[in-house]
């Protein structure tokens, strides 16, 4: 395919987004060429066609099924310790593909920008997306930009859709958990949720919590390739690990038992949760997955995770049990058990 040199690259000379940048004219062309095409820089995008085009045979070389997913990202603040909305928008969609066993390949990027948004911030976000995409081995091949009136959106919303290919023989599904299986988590839980609460600056707490936001594609590739059968796998985002475990328990018609003493929670995150009356089981993560594996494979999966940078703190947090069907139990430090249900809505800090 012939590479088209973007005609208007280098012409963008204002510092704020205006409605003109979404109006389809020269200003919009400046923005696309100078920020998006220059930033994402890849052969498919550089053709400047209205759609990305893929060679079917190279897709088929990777596996026998396509996987597709979409997610929209609306985080406040846009930049937080450990990441930004761009890193999040790539990681989140990549992870949704990867936990299904797919090798993530292509992403789209739709941006809804509030009038007045800083072009420098936008460039930083695009750079972060490109960096994260490279890290995850995906290309951002098509996109869309809309600019809305002041107050019609909160600064910037991003939607990414992802396409990946599932290698033949890989079967990961939430329905496959069996009694006796082991639950493995690739590291500390609740970091993202706690970092966001902290970054909003509403609490006069000095803290150093960083979001765990990261693409998990290469970690997942490693554990899928280690010769062990992964029964279920999901990334624990909104709703935390409690929500994912409930989903597994209901889909597989089994119970789950996790151990309070085995849960990996950083002291800073625990401290914040104690003060606010939040539960780390329900805090969001953006770089954590739960894998359910047969007991004989647990050690191998665990060691594979631990030898990967995204799984250094991987640990076994629980086991799959027969009963109660569809329920998650937590064994407390004192030997009792309680139910860990899904939340009704958002976790709200307790009054006292």
């Amino acid at each position, binding site marked *: 395919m012939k590479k088209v040199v973007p005609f208007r690259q280098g012409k963008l000379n204002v510092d704020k987004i205006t409605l003109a940048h979404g109006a389809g004219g020269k200003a919009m062309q400046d923005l696309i060429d100078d920020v998006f095409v220059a930033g994402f820089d890849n052969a498919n995008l550089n053709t400047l066609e209205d759609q990305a085009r893929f060679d079917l045979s190279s897709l088929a070389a990777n596996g026998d099924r396509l996987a597709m997913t979409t997610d929209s990202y609306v985080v406040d603040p846009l930049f937080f310790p450990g990441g930004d909305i761009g890193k999040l928008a790539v990681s989140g969609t990549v992870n949704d593909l990867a936990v299904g066993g797919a090798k993530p390949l292509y992403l789209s990027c739709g941006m809804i920008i509030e009038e007045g948004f800083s072009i420098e911030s936008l460039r930083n976000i695009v750079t972060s997306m490109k960096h994260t995409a490279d890290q995850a081995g995906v290309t951002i091949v098509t996109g869309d930009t809309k600019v809305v009136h002041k107050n019609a959106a909160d600064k910037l919303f991003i939607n990414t859709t992802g396409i990946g290919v599932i290698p033949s023989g890989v079967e990961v599904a939430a329905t496959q958990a069996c009694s006796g299986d082991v639950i493995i988590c690739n590291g500390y839980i609740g970091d993202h949720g706690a970092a966001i609460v902290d970054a909003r600056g509403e609490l006069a707490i000095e803290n150093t919590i960083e979001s765990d936001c990261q693409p998990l594609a290469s970690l997942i590739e490693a554990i899928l390739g280690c010769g062990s059968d992964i029964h279920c796998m999901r990334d624990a985002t909104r709703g935390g690990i409690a929500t994912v475990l409930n989903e597994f328990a209901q889909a597989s018609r089994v119970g789950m038992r996790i151990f309070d003493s085995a849960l990996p929670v950083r002291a800073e995150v*625990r401290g914040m949760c104690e003060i606010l009356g939040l539960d780390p089981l329900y805090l969001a993560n953006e770089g954590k997955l739960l894998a359910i594996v047969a007991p004989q494979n647990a050690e191998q999966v665990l060691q594979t995770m631990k030898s990967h940078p995204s799984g250094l703190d991987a640990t076994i947090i629980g086991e799959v049990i027969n009963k109660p069907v569809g329920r998650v139990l937590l064994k407390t430090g*004192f*030997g009792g058990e*309680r*139910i860990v249900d899904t939340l009704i809505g958002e976790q709200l*800090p*307790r*009054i006292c």
Partner: protein
Amino acid sequence: MKFVDEFRDPVHAKNLTKQIKLLAAQLSASDKQPLQLMEFCGGHTHTIFRHSIGQLLPRNIETVHGPGCPVCVLPMGRVDDCVALATHPEVIFTTFGDAMRVPGSKKSLLQARADGADVRMVYSPLDALSLARKNPEREVVFFAIGFETTMPSTALTVQQAKQEGINNFSLFCNHITTVPTIKAILDSPDMRIDGFLAPGHVSMVVGEQPFEFISQVYKKPLVITGFEPLDILQSIYMLLQQIVDKRCEVENQYYRVVPSQGNTVALKAIQDVFELRSFFEWRGLGSIDHSGVKMREDYAAFDAEKKFDLPLLKIADPKSCQCGEVLKGAIRPWECKQFGQACRPETPMGALMVSTEGACAAYYNFGDVDRLLERRDVDTPTAEVSA
């Protein structure tokens, strides 16, 4: 983590449980007619469930979860008043997080916000005051809620507002008092409580003395209790020891935080800003004499009830709601006909299902696994509702 883990040590817990079992064996209470110990405070209820302490206790001892969750006991009429206040276009309505979900007769504050009201979550009344400083053209109303624990911070905030001459800040005062409410429970004919775990943080403010009538007049033992699992176990042990010794005293397990005379500075601030109401309405318990406070005349300029025209309507609890009986230990949460049926955390009918600190919501969310399984067997859909 220091100051937390040392009060959650499983080895100490095991020892305490053993001691509790030895004492429990000396009681006349049976598994069928267990001894009932009430923890008044929602914070205690939360700890008991979170750490599954109920399962560690011998079967002839039962904890009864009292009305000490200020979010739960807020009557619907007051929530309606909040919504009415929040709906004023000039008002920024500020509230603690968990009060936002409490249902009014028509909507909660969360729903009011969805309908366009400017409702903002704050972590302290001082946050609300700084919003007032930043938004001089708006009226910032703080939803003051809680027992004596949160009263001092509200009082000090209003004192500061007065000192600074801030005139766009007011309180919607829903502070409630502990002692008159315990007295109301003790006076009710179906009351079956044998001893009390008294609220640690309320006591930190009011001290030990206000509880003495419970041991002296009502002859019930009482232990002021901290909020970590070992605090609760130790206090249960202390209560049982009193019962075995046939003593009725006010004892202070939480002496690392609670001075016997309370916090005189905090009490002075409360005294300066607030005075007792002749009565206050509680969800689940009805009207209780002297169980709430209002702002004194000196602070009328900061009183949202005086600044705004409020509906102030009394909305009765649903007839089939049995919160009152649960609160007094007459029935257990899962024995209420509405539990898990019409009344669930996502659509609470009664006070105790509203916040996770409410007894019914705690049972529903955290579950006593055996009991929930028993219920499941007879009624599968109940256990699956949250799916």
